[in-house]
């Protein structure tokens, strides 16, 4: 039986990277299909209206969260590969983590203020 008390996250990081990638792929297909079947008219107003339905905003938000979490896992992987000084790696992780956390808030704010 897997001992869940151990702070091992090799598998969960790997699995989440793939889960977020699938989320992004599904959203990309949805947006492509909608773009073809329901092409917005040129101009900011039409594009804004295109994004306004709450379900579409929710999907877009889900995509952006998946993208940001995917980026976080990717950055962590790269730092684990190349930066072996623990103190420097921790600082870089905090830097990227703070930037990505800011993007989560910012993306949510932008998408939700479309309503």
């Amino acid at each position, binding site marked *: *039986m*897997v*001992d869940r008390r*151990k702070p*091992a*996250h*090799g*598998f*969960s*990081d*790997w*699995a989440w990277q793939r889960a977020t990638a699938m989320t992004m792929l599904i959203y990309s297909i949805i947006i492509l299909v909608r773009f073809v079947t329901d092409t917005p008219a040129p101009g900011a107003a039409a594009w804004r209206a295109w994004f306004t339905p709450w379900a579409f905003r929710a999907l877009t938000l889900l995509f952006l969260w998946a993208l940001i979490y995917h980026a976080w896992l990717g950055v962590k*992987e790269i730092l*684990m*590969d*190349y930066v*072996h000084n623990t103190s420097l790696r921790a600082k870089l992780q905090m830097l990227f983590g703070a930037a990505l956390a800011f993007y989560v808030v910012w993306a949510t704010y932008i998408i939700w203020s479309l309503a």
Partner: protein
Amino acid sequence: MKFSIYRFNPDVDKDPYMQDYDIELAPDTRMLLDALIQIKELDDTLSLRRSCREGVCGSDAMNINGKNGLACVTPLEGIKQPVVLRPLPGLPVIRDLIVDMEQFFAHYNSIKPYLINNDTPPTTERLQSPEDRAKLDGLYECILCGACTASCPSFWWNPDKFVGPAGLMQAYRFISDSRDQAQEERLENLEDPYRLYRCHNIMNCVDVCPKGLNPSKAINEIKALKVKQNFK
């Protein structure tokens, strides 16, 4: 025939250097290792490992014209000259073409490369169906020469933590053995973010394996089993 060979003797040399050799080979010389043995007859300070000279013992893995391989199974016919020979990359050099394989074998030991079965051994042997035996094909043939692991950037960057393609393929060899009872523990032993998950599938290992094996495939089979284990 022209050769350019990496030389380093830590007792004498401050830095490693490349030494050129231009020798007349015996007419029936076919493989690179045969040429190296002839060079060693002329210059006995050149150090290299070799034993079986037919691709079974895995002693003479080296970097040949930029690609890891076994000197004994590398034909001289059509080889680019000068033949540039260096020790396996990413491993500490002991002298000339001889590298320290201690780390490599420590990783191999860490995956418990032996059958774990707590049942009372039968009087003759533990039987296996032909289908179960076939699952070990493409895995058991590994001779542990280290060509794959020493070609893997993930191993170069984290040699102390990443098990490497050779060790991981042997891990899968025992995970997929129907007679082994420690599959769970073996998978758990690779849970750490470094031991297995430093592999990013660049497949240098597959490219260089002198036995034509596919460590990348074995590593992905382990990852697939990790999914099953975690969602069980």
